[in-house]
């Protein structure tokens, strides 16, 4: 085996690209790795070609690389091995790639040549990038905080792609960019630095177009470019967008020194990392959103439990104010009640720094404060600044240091009862959407208020029912004392007198017995009517229609009863409806100055409707203190029914009760 053949057989098996140059600078042979890396198909295409003129004849910027300047073949002349960290080789098609190479002298039979081994830096960087991406992806998957992800990404990108400086910026409103992650040996702009975007800078271009951009800082005026050049020797920049939810969230920039721009593949390589950054951000957003929802749910649940337990309104109000404040990071929360006379009455409040309006404060509900806005629009709203807002409520808020507020209406039974207001003493307003989160709590307030109102109404109704029952008992006792009892006392007296007169004066005795008989008849008639009035037997045996007809026959006024349904319903409903009709007709006779009246009764499968109307003077209304319509309303309310009165002055009165039939 010749030396050549020996060498060739070794080099063919080596993974490192290697070629051998003869004393003349011509390629003696190249191993398959080298043939492939240089873009050739066969070693024969290289053999015998001048090495420098074939693979090393130009710089990356296209300028010629004179052979006399080239160190690669020098070992052939001086016998010293050399090593280049970074240089560029030219492929068959003229494209270039970065390499690190070693060149060593090689004694050959025909004179000293050199053996050149090189590493494709792009290959190495690709590998490094793959593992860097894997490390970043692992970090993202572990749910690292965005700040950590930014720092690691900057470092990994710098290392794996070989850039001097990697910068990740977040785009803020109003054309501001803030450094959120950075890596570089020389870094003039630490994390947290903000600057205003301009048309020349790379981040400004990316922000404007949403597409990758490149700049040569030699062409860029301004402080930033100057600083970068002075402090870090930066000349070139490539920027790619970080896209989150369809918008440009930020920019990742690769900045480099040196005479040549970054390779064309830079944008694509950066994009691999910006996608991971975007994923990390999206994850964080999702997690924050989840946590916010969980916090909100737990705060709502806490208040809802209080409401469900029927806690006193004040306790619920205080809890809502505090939970709302803590949840949306407000520094002050107030619950206001809008009174019927246009006053904003502060019911409860909470604040971090004592800036809430004190409960009990009464101010006119007018002007431009959030309270008035919510009252007028009946919808959540916000006031982003109270600066220069006239009117007393806004002035009071300024005094308290509240800069801006959001609020939502508390709607009870279709009316705006008040508003839940959250404010902040920070210069920045509460985040967009905070008003809708306040609205969830406002709904709980509405439920609590509605419950409390219903409870108060129920208690008042119960009290009235008890009072009405007491009054009915007193009336019954009076009727019995004045009526039947008096009649019976008279009968007893007359009969006793008759007994005494029996022997002496039989005629007088007879007269007394006659009178006692008449008197007892009166008593019996009175008792019969009294009993019928308390609860007519016919109501039980024949139902509403028969009982109402019987009732109407006793009244001194014609009452039309042609539209009375004959069906039967539950006893308590029949009783309540009967007394409703009875009291309504009594009212008609007493107050309406009517010529006639009409009772209508309809019994449908699921609802009973009864209507008492008259042709009287009208103008009846539920008298809150009295027994009249309020009493009737209580009676029907107890059956889950509703009572309505239509009684315009001069057009009679129609009382209608609708009772559900369970």
């Amino acid at each position: 085996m010749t030396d050549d053949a020996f060498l060739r057989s070794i080099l063919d098996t080596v993974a490192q690209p290697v070629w051998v140059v003869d004393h003349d600078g011509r390629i003696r042979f190249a191993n398959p790795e080298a043939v492939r890396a240089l873009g050739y198909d066969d070693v024969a295409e290289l053999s015998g070609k001048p090495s420098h003129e074939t693979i090393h004849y130009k710089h990356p910027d296209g300028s010629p690389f004179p052979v006399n300047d080239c160190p690669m073949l020098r070992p052939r002349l001086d016998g010293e091995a050399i090593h280049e960290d970074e240089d560029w080789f030219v492929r068959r098609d003229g494209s270039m790639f970065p390499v690190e190479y070693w060149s060593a002298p090689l004694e050959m039979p025909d004179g000293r040549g050199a053996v050149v081994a090189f590493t494709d830096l792009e290959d190495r960087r690709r590998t490094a990038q793959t593992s860097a991406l894997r490390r970043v992806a692992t970090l993202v998957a572990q749910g690292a905080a965005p700040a950590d992800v930014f720092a690691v990404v900057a470092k990994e990108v710098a290392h794996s792609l070989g850039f001097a400086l990697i910068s990740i910026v977040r785009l803020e409103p109003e054309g501001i960019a803030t450094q959120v992650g950075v890596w570089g040996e020389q870094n003039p702009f630490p994390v947290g630095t903000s600057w205003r975007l301009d048309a020349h800078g790379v981040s400004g271009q990316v922000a404007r177009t949403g597409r990758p951009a490149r700049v040569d800082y030699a062409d860029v005026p301004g402080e930033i470019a100057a600083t970068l050049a002075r402090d870090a020797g930066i000349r070139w920049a490539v920027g790619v967008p970080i896209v989150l939810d369809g918008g440009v969230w930020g920019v990742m920039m690769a900045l480099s020194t040196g005479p040549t721009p970054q390779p064309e593949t830079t944008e694509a390589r950066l994009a691999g990392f910006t996608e991971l950054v975007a994923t990390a951000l999206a994850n964080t957003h999702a997690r924050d959103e989840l946590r916010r929802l969980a916090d909100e749910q737990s705060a709502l649940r806490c208040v809802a439990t209080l409401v469900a337990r029927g806690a006193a309104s004040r306790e619920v109000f205080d809890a809502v104010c505090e939970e709302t404040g803590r949840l949306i990071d407000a520094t002050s929360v107030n619950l206001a009640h809008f009174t019927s006379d246009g006053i904003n009455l502060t019911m409860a409040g909470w604040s971090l720094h004592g800036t809430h309006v004190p409960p009990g404060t009464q101010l006119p509900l007018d002007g431009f404060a959030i309270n008035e806005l919510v009252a007028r629009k009946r919808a959540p709203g916000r006031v982003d600044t109270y600066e220069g807002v006239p009117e007393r409520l806004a002035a009071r808020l300024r005094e308290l240091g509240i800069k801006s507020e959001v609020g939502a209406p508390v709607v009870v039974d279709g009316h705006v009862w008040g508003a839940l207001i959250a404010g902040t003493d920070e210069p920045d307003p509460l985040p967009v959407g905070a008003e809708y989160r306040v609205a969830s709590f406002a709904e709980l307030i509405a439920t609590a208020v509605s419950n409390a109102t219903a409870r108060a109404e129920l208690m008042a109704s119960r009290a009235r029912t008890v009072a009405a029952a007491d009054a009915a008992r007193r009336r019954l006792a009076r009727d019995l004392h004045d009526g039947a009892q008096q009649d019976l006392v008279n009968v007893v007296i007359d009969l006793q007198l008759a007994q005494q007169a029996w022997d002496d004066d039989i005629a007088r005795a007879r007269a007394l017995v006659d009178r006692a008989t008449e008197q007892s008849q009166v008593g019996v008639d009175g008792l019969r009517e009294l009993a019928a009035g308390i609860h007519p037997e016919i109501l039980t045996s024949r139902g509403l229609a028969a009982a109402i007809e019987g009732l109407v026959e006793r009244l001194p006024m014609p009452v039309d009863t042609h539209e009375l349904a004959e069906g039967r319903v539950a006893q308590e409903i029949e009783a309540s409806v009967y007394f409703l009709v009875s009291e309504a007709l009594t009212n008609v006779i007493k107050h309406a100055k009517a010529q006639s009246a009409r009772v209508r009764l309809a019994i449908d499968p699921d609802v009973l409707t009864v209507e008492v109307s008259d042709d009287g003077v009208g103008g009846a209304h539920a008298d809150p203190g009295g027994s009249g319509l309020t009493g009737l309303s209580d009676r029907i309310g107890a059956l889950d029914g509703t009572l309505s009165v239509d009684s315009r002055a001069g057009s009679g009165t129609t009382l209608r009760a609708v009772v559900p039939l369970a």
Partner: protein
Amino acid sequence: MADQAVIRVVVGEDQPLVREGVIRVLERAGFEVVGVAADADDLARKARAHHPDVVVTDIRMPPGEADAGLQAALAIRRDDPATGVLVLSQYLETRYALDLVGERAEGVGYLLKDRVGDVPAFTDAVRRVARGGSALDPAVVERMVGRPRDGGPIAELTAREREVLSLMAEGLSNQAIAERLVITVAGVERHVTRIFGKLDLHQTPEHHRRVLAVLQYLRTGR
């Protein structure tokens, strides 16, 4: 002569004192009390067994109180049309009376309970019902006739005509009306003709048809 035969009565009343009172009044007046029942079921059974001329019963009876006596009376009337029924009631309700009469004013009566003490009137009513006539309590009739009306023919009757109309409704014959009002039978007949004319009712020679026509007229509440 059948009219002179002893009238056989079944009495239904759950309160012992009242029951004894009713029985004593009836027996003293010459009626034969052939059966006594203290509840509605017993009453129906005894009425079927004895086929009395008349059943006199309280409206309120066990079982169920309420109007069990009236229901039993209705059943007896339906099952045995020859037996008259007279219901004694503490309820001044025209509906009960009209339900009891239904479509047939023969052998039926509805009296307030305290009428029992007015022995002649009470026994007269029992006798009328036993013989196929009718007897409605004057207070019940007064409630129907005297009910407030928005105009209408009844408002156009004279006071005397209203009196005659009421007595017809109670079930009295022209003869009885004449005696009550102390006028001639012919005078009663003239009133009746005018009343029927004003109310636009067809005169009928049959007494019980006349009662029914009057009651049905009053029932409509015109």
